[in-house]
């Protein structure tokens, strides 16, 4: 019997404080059998903290042959709050991988636009890493990253290092700047005029708060991105990850198994695009 609900033990190997309320955990799976480590960019896993429950987190690391993976956790509720109190060598439960992947094949040979807001950079990180790993297979890469304040940006060093990649540009913006901030201010859309790709043939991938997604898509459509070429990673309340518990159900689809990554064309059909 393979009880999908029964998580496996994973040991915390490393904890990085990304911001005041975001930590990145490197987890090592004790028992390497099973599919958990066979994840692909865009997929998620269910993280268990017995006593607090379970919640979905998108893999923030690239699939590799090691028994490790990373997730970034923002402190929001009781489970994530408890996560933030954990220490290296503590054990948690993990199961997965679940959900669909970003359309890496479809993205090949095309120009790409990545738009992330705050912790929304976590799901995009593995796909961006994948792209740079096979740099020649993809066209120009534009990355737009927005956060509330400069201190709310995650993976800052790595994001900076992406500037060194060929034919790539990074654009940063914040809602509320501090003294050290020299970059742009405002929502991510303010940076769209700087993007040097052809919207009609490019693919855009977004992840961030619902409002950011809403306005970014609105502007992208104005730039003539195609509906079927805009992809967003959706967040929903979910308890099982395998299309049973019903929380993430929308119009016959389950965000956990049919998503969490949908094109805007699909989102429109589900009535979840605004």
């Amino acid at each position, binding site marked *: 019997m393979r009880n999908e*609900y029964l998580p496996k033990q994973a040991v915390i190997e490393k904890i990085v404080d990304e911001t005041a309320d975001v930590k990145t955990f490197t987890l090592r799976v004790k028992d390497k059998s099973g599919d958990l480590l066979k994840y692909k960019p865009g997929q998620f896993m269910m993280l268990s903290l017995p*006593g607090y429950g379970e919640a979905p987190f998108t893999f923030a690391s690239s699939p590799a042959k090691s028994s490790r993976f990373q997730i970034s956790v923002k402190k929001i509720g009781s489970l994530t709050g408890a996560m933030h109190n954990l220490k290296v060598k503590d054990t948690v439960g993990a199961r997965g991988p679940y959900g669909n992947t970003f359309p890496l094949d479809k993205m090949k040979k095309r120009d790409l636009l990545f738009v992330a807001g705050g912790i929304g950079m976590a799901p995009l990180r593995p796909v961006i890493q994948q792209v740079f790993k096979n740099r020649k297979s993809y066209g120009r890469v534009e990355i737009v990253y927005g956060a509330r304040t400069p201190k709310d940006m995650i993976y800052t060093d790595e994001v900076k290092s992406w500037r060194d990649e060929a034919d790539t540009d990074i654009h940063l913006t914040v809602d509320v700047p501090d003294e050290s901030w020299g970059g742009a201010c405002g929502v991510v859309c303010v940076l769209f005029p700087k993007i040097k790709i052809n919207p009609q043939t490019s693919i855009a991938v977004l992840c961030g708060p619902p409002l950011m997604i809403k306005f970014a898509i609105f502007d992208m459509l104005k730039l003539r991105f195609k509906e079927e070429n805009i992809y967003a990673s959706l967040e929903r309340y979910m308890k099982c990850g395998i299309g049973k518990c019903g929380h993430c159900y929308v119009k016959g689809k389950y965000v956990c198994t049919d998503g969490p990554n949908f094109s805007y064309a699909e989102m429109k059909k589900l009535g979840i695009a605004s």
Partner: protein
Amino acid sequence: MNRPFITREHLKVLIKVLKSSCDEFIAPRREHLTDIVFGDAKTGGGELPDYDGNSVISPRAFLLPQTEPLFEIKSARRSELAPIEDKRTRVFYGVRPCDIKALVLMREFFIEREFADEPYKTKMGRSTFIALACSKRCSAKAFCDEMGAGPVAKSGFDLQMRAVSRGYIIDIGSEKGEKIVGENKRLFKRASPQDEKEAKAVLKDFTKEPEKIDYKKLAKTMANDSVEPSVWDDIGQRCVICSGCVTLCPTCGCFSVVDRISGDRGERLRYCDGCPYAGFTRMAGGSAPFPLHKDHIRRFFEHKLNHDVDRYGTPSCVGCARCIETCPGNISIRKLIREAVK
């Protein structure tokens, strides 16, 4: 060749045989006054070989209980978990066709998709289903015939019994059912043409004026958002979030999980959850993709009457009327259907 047939006397013997073949014999029993509830009759007895009406709650409650441990937490601190497996074999006796159809839909959904729900699948695999076709409508509000779920089950059972005056005509629905008949040959005869005639008359009687619902049209009406907005407004105002509909509906399978810990040990429970609650879709941090109450209830109805028609080719309402008869807001899915296809 005519179908197998069993007399009432022989049925009692068959029940005895079946009881000895399983760990739990889940059969309808009369509880207080007129209440009928499925329970284990293997040791306690009290099963009703035949009965009018239907059980307050569908016997599915034994496959997906209102609360059920998913696994044991041996150490919360170390995330040491141990599976809990229900190894009991069960014979479900006297299950109504509407509940049988619900089990068919549950199988599609809970077992035969990309991931199987293991606890449910395990229990299903160890269960035998003996259906009892309806001779009378179980309540004035029931409309199984309109939903194509009764009074006789088309599939999903191992054996089905249809009452006639001499006894019961038997439908065999699976190899398991075949085996039961085969192993108890001495108890079965063949139905006579008179029995078959009688069975047909019962069926005709049941659906005197069948008002078949064009559920494709219904689904389309819903998909096109052409149900009168006032219908949803009214439903939203009537629903007082008792959660009775989602608890009693034999095709509602939504659940939530919670950990119950005492010291370092405990268990992860899953429990019945569903559309009516605002918290069902609200995310950590408080943002709600469906802020309006009426949309929560609409989702309940649209899932059953629109999306599932798309997915399974049949609505996942079986017309058992349990939700109607337990709704303190007097919401009726049947009335909604009528208003929608009007």
